């Protein structure tokens, strides 16, 4: 009896992959990565120290790659539910462009390299925070919370809120109240942002079996929660000015932007139950993206002016 009786392999076994570099870049979630890079950069600029510019660029790169690695690991684990949602069905794994093992290896490899690079080029506190962020996003959020509780994005939002803290730590080697305020702004912003999306993507999340707030607690409860969080977002936005590490001018800009957030959320709150068009929810989702970019851009400009002036 021959040990190997079959001379031919079936299907795609043993075939070369057709994945291109572009597919692997898509695994890094470039749009999320750009927000991570931006907020981490703002954390660096606001930190009370002047870094070597090249080391600062390397630190930003390491944070970006670490965030991308977390995205790749998220896509590896979530391939089954991504295939069921219109929003995510085009990702490389559901489309069969990248094999699960390739995505897992890619994510683990980049996670290790990004943390090591940040540790060696900046400091090990920043590297530990990056490692914790990747762990929190992949294990706590993706593997545990996402499929088990409607509070998934509330708690999981901590991962997305950490980049400015990592940026600050990369420059100063410390975590301070100021960096935690930057964390708080993104942490409080995450629930209304994703719940606005979940309101008009209820069908998608239901098909995938993800217990998002509108699917579990209903539209009315979600709209009230969105409004409550919007008020907290607006209040947290002006904290940098109140605590004295941003100017009054920034405070005024943040108040206006926060007022806009509350205004859009008010329209969501007043939206009729059963409104299928979900216009106010879509408008809030779009505004929330503008808000986060604008508030950090305002902090960046304010920080740069105070550096030049001071």
């Amino acid at each position: 009896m021959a040990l190997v009786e079959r001379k031919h392999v079936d299907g795609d076994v043993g075939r070369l992959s057709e994945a291109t570099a572009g597919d692997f870049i898509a695994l890094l979630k470039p749009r999320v990565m750009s927000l991570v890079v931006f907020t981490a950069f703002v954390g660096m600029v606001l930190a009370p120290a002047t870094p070597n510019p090249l080391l600062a660029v390397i630190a930003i790169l390491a944070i970006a790659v670490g965030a991308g690695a977390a995205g790749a690991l998220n896509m590896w684990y979530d391939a089954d539910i991504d295939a069921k949602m219109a929003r995510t069905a085009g990702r490389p794994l559901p489309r069969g462009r990248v094999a699960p093992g390739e995505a897992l290896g890619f994510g683990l490899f980049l996670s290790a390299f990004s943390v090591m690079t940040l540790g060696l080029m900046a400091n090990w506190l920043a590297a530990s925070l990056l490692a914790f962020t990747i762990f929190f996003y992949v294990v706590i959020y993706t593997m545990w919370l996402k499929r088990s509780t409607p509070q998934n994005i509330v708690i999981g939002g901590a991962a997305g809120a950490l980049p400015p803290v990592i940026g600050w730590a990369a420059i100063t080697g410390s975590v301070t109240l100021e960096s935690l305020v930057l964390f708080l702004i993104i942490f409080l912003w995450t629930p209304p942002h994703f719940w606005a999306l979940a309101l008009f993507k209820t069908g998608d999340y239901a098909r995938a079996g993800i217990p998002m707030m509108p699917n579990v607690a209903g539209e009315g409860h979600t709209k009230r929660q969105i409004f409550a969080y919007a008020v907290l977002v607006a209040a947290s936005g002006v904290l940098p000015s109140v605590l004295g590490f941003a100017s009054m001018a920034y405070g005024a800009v943040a108040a206006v932007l926060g007022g806009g957030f509350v205004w859009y959320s008010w329209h969501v709150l007043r939206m009729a139950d059963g409104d299928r068009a979900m216009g106010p929810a879509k408008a809030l989702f779009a505004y929330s993206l503008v808000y986060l970019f604008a508030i950090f851009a305002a902090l960046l400009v304010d920080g740069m002016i105070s550096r030049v002036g001071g």
Partner: protein
Amino acid sequence: MPDDDRIKPTEKELKARRNRSIAIALALAAFVIIVYLGSLMKLGPSLFDRAM
């Protein structure tokens, strides 16, 4: 083993492999440059400060 028993890569697979190989080469080259320049910046002049 006769040649026809082996898996023959298609044009598309070969093109994708070449694309990946170039990307890996570029990423590794960038990583080497980053580590080299980063080490120079981090260690500064003391990098060359050693007993002969």
